[in-house]
């Protein structure tokens, strides 16, 4: 059948709407030198020590978030599948809550609950605040992480693998670390890339907890410079594109995971 005219029209209009801002940003980021295109804005950004510090901070945060999220989610999802299948809807509901409660409300709660005069004064020290921010990011990534891991677990026979390992004398740490984790690793990766994309540009949590992350840095540059923000947007978009691309590759490699997702 031939393509219908209306579908091309809709598609091209959509294409224009999504392509123009990207082209516009790229063009704008090259305009710093008067009269010709140059990479000056990028040079300025990469030479800015604050860029390197905040970007490095956010990368470390993202990696820690992924590691901690994995340590939290993989054993939980495994345990729920193995022992408490009836609790699955409850756990799933909890992991979806961060999509319902706006992040700004969650971080407001952190600030009120963990201030210096509370039972757990995390915001009192730099280390504590960093830890709180990391926990906040783990919370924001829960919906994606849990979903990814649970999808991965669905494709393997958790019970048989566990019993086989136990009959060979494996303990729980061995089972989770050397049997379950390698089996769901690809699924975990797909959750990890989304997490990375979210954490790297996150603004609200970092700004309100006063941490020197990449999101607040971008906002600061946006308020004070002309062409550099566009360069930062190009960089951020490239990172997002890269992460989501990797995520899609990872989820395509997960066997049978497409079967029941929609």
């Amino acid at each position, binding site marked *: 059948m031939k393509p*219908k005219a209306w*579908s*091309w029209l*809709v*598609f091209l209009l959509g294409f224009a*709407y*999504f392509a123009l*801002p990207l082209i*516009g*940003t790229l063009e*704008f*980021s090259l305009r710093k030198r008067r009269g010709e295109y140059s990479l000056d804005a990028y040079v300025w950004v990469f030479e800015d020590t604050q860029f390197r510090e905040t970007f490095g901070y956010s990368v470390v945060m993202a990696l820690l978030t992924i590691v901690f999220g994995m340590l*939290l989610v993989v*054993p*939980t999802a495994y*345990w*729920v599948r193995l*022992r*408490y299948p009836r609790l699955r809807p409850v*756990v799933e509901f*909890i992991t979806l*809550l961060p*999509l*319902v*409660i*706006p992040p*700004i*409300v*969650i971080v*407001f*709660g952190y*600030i*009120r*609950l963990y201030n210096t005069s509370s039972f757990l004064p995390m915001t009192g020290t730099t280390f504590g605040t960093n830890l709180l921010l990391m*926990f906040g990011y*783990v*919370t924001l990534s829960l919906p994606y992480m849990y979903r990814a891991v649970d999808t991965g677990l669905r494709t393997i*026979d958790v*019970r048989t693998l566990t*019993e086989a390992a136990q009959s060979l004398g494996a303990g729980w740490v061995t089972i989770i670390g050397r049997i379950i984790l390698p089996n769901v690793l690809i699924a975990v990766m797909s959750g990890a890339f*989304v997490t990375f994309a979210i954490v790297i*540009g*996150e*603004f*609200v949590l970092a*700004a*309100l907890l006063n941490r020197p992350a990449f*999101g607040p840095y*971008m906002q600061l540059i*946006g308020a004070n410079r002309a062409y550099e*923000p*566009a360069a930062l*947007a190009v960089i*951020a978009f490239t990172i*997002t594109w890269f992460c*989501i691309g990797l*995520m*899609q590759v990872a989820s395509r490699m997960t066997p049978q995971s497409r079967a*029941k997702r*929609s």
Partner: protein
Amino acid sequence: MTAPPHTPARKPVLPLGWLGLFPFALFALLFLILPTMNIVTGAFQTADGTPTLQNIANLFQPSILSAYWISIRISFATALLGCLIGFGIAAAVTLGNLPGWLRGPVMTFSGVASNFAGVPLSFAFIATLGRVGLVTVLLREWFGLNLYSLGFNLLSFWGLTLVYLFFQIPLMVLIVTPALDGLRREWREASDILGATGGQYWRMVALPILTPTLLGTFALLFANSFGAVATAYALTGSSLSIVPIVLFAQIRGDVLQDPHLGYALAFGMIVVTGIANGLYVWLRAKTERWTV
């Protein structure tokens, strides 16, 4: 969804099985549930802890009400337009006989763009539709059309709506494409055989089936844009008073007349997004009967 088969084989002997869920429960309690409860209870307390409804009553002052009103209007507009346009694109890709290879890139791009909210998104639109942005300049030079003298402003209701659509439309595409795939070919053929026109098929068969998905996604998009802070903040600073921006300023301490008003503002946000998401879950459950 299949539960793992319950084999009668012996279960691992471990009397303290609930310990396996303890870390997750503790984490969710400390970093999700207690902080939210703290806000909710705070909304109904005075500074020294006595119960009150005064904070909620204080929400009904003109400046706060107008913040909620503009937030709700923006969320409504972006959700509605996001649904319509997203539906159009998804329909073009699934039902419009476009070349098959287009579909993969459209879905991948939707995945990227729906995650591309926040500060960089606002930069992209300033670079495109700001006063010296690419489109603004080109329209002026090629067609002599000055957007800004025509009353367009990126830092306005419609400006913000236009920006939000950049992540709203792709989210709709991601959700509705599987639903459109779920429309069985037989339904179309059956209605064709019975002499229905294309319009009748859509009006009497396809749309009634899709309605819960569409309404549900509408609710999700509504909540999605209602809670967004970073995009608007980077775009407008504090000049456009939508609820998340007012709350952000409250927490930052820019506006310090009444700390408990912050709790009430946040509580109001939970109520609005909670209702929107509740609708989503409920309508979603109603559609699953059809698509499974």
